[in-house]
């Protein structure tokens, strides 16, 4: 079990608001780690803080043993962390092809092979290759966002609420894709849909009011009705 990403007592402000007040957890190589918590608990800010988009004001973030909390977002991305934001961040006036081209750091043979693999994973993207990103459906946008993050050799993918606003059948497809991607990369997932999180997650970290409440194996959380009821409002 190799630790890929480690957060220790991370704190983040957005403007005057103290959003993260002590987040600590580890993401393990080869696993899907899931961040869980109610709306406004600080899950999205945690991902943005890891990416350097809302920099941490205190605490340590290490990726592959190196500190990254002071690095610019593009350094963090080039260091091997891919990011799929909650709103997917699709460039609406660019085609699917152009979105992929912007994402692809080097247009090498290896990268093109990875792109072919991604297009097999998400055949819809191939079908709508010349379509503008803004004209895609919610599910297709999610697939494009994941494909963009995956096309480079990211060692860790941060995926923020991939099931949000999607129809159940599309959620199934997204889950299948994440399961497939897990064979090639580690994943840190933020997910409100506990059914989905519990099916694909290996470990969990519960966040409440900007603080880590508990981390552990997903199977342990599935059986812990009290914890689920208290922090997730289910069970």
């Amino acid at each position: 079990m190799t630790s890929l990403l480690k957060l220790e007592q991370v704190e983040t402000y957005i403007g005057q608001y103290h959003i993260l007040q002590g987040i600590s957890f580890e993401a393990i190589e080869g696993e899907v780690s899931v961040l869980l918590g109610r709306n406004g608990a600080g899950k999205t800010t945690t991902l943005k803080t890891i990416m350097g988009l809302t920099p941490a004001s205190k605490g340590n973030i290490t990726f592959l043993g190196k500190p990254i909390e002071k690095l610019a977002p593009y350094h963090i991305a080039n260091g091997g962390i891919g990011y799929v934001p909650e709103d997917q961040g699709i460039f609406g006036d660019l085609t699917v092809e152009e979105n992929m081209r912007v994402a692809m750091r080097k247009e090498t043979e290896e990268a093109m092979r990875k792109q072919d693999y991604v297009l097999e994973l998400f055949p819809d993207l191939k079908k709508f290759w010349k379509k503008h990103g803004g004209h895609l459906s919610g599910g297709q946008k999610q697939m494009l966002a994941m494909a963009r993050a995956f096309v480079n050799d990211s060692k860790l993918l941060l995926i923020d609420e991939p099931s949000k606003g999607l129809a159940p059948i599309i959620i199934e497809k997204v889950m299948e894709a994440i399961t497939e991607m897990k064979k090639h990369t580690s994943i840190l997932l933020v997910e409100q849909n506990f059914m989905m999180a519990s099916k694909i997650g290996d470990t969990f970290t519960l966040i409440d009011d900007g603080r880590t409440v508990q981390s552990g194996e997903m199977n342990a959380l599935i059986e812990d009705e009290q914890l689920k009821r208290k922090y997730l409002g289910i069970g």
Partner: protein
Amino acid sequence: MDLLVSLTINGLATGMLIFLLAAGLTLIFGLMDVLNFAHGGLFVWGAYTGVFSYAWSGSFLVGIVVAIVTGLVLGFITEKIIITPVYGNHVQQILITLGFMLVLQEMIKVVFGPNGVPVSVPGYFAGSWEIGDVIIIKYRVFIIVIGFTLFAILQYILKRTKIGLIVRAGVMNKEMVQALGINIKRVFLLVFMVGAALASLGGMLMAPYSGVVYAEMGMEYAILGFIVVVIGGMGSFSGSLMAAILVGLAGSYMAYYVPFLSLAVNMILMAIVLIFRPQGLFSTVKG
């Protein structure tokens, strides 16, 4: 008919010169969200360094190259020293770039002298063609060709090249571009330098067209550049070209047919567009 053709060519040439100024402005605003009032200073510095190099070397091409290099260097310095500290604050941007514009303008007087400098059209573009009753001035055609050629090149870069795609993506979502591993600050700097070089080139090309360069010309044309950016749509390249042609033609026709309105025509055009289409004729860098 001959008069109408002459006025149209005159208007198109003026429009192209304004387009060179507005193209940089619209890109800088679209991508970087920066209101750069110093743009006119880059225009006038391009005009002066280009004209003096032209006079010294006897080659108009040398003048053009020097103007472009001046724009790139001044663009680099302006972005690094003036713009970087005020990203995200429009009020500070207006104040500091307006102040820097005045500094650039006064520096022209210190370095090149306070008086205007007469400029002649280079020999191979001097004179005119006569087609029937129509007289076509060669230099104006040259400006129109240069303007359309640069528009085509910039369109190609924006639509077909990787850096162009990154610029367009950056206009839409800077945060996401960074999260994909791209140093957006470096892209900002590049765009700013290219915008400054376009302004400087515009200044150099304007010099033989107007027959004289003077320190205050930067401010005068920068205002026209801003009007064009507002009419065309902030961040739209095609919009800037259309609006520049519109402003150039309107100025040319009005100066002849309704002279008392010629100074106001640009403001009237801008007011009409703002009333009926506040976002401008086009919007965002779609090409």
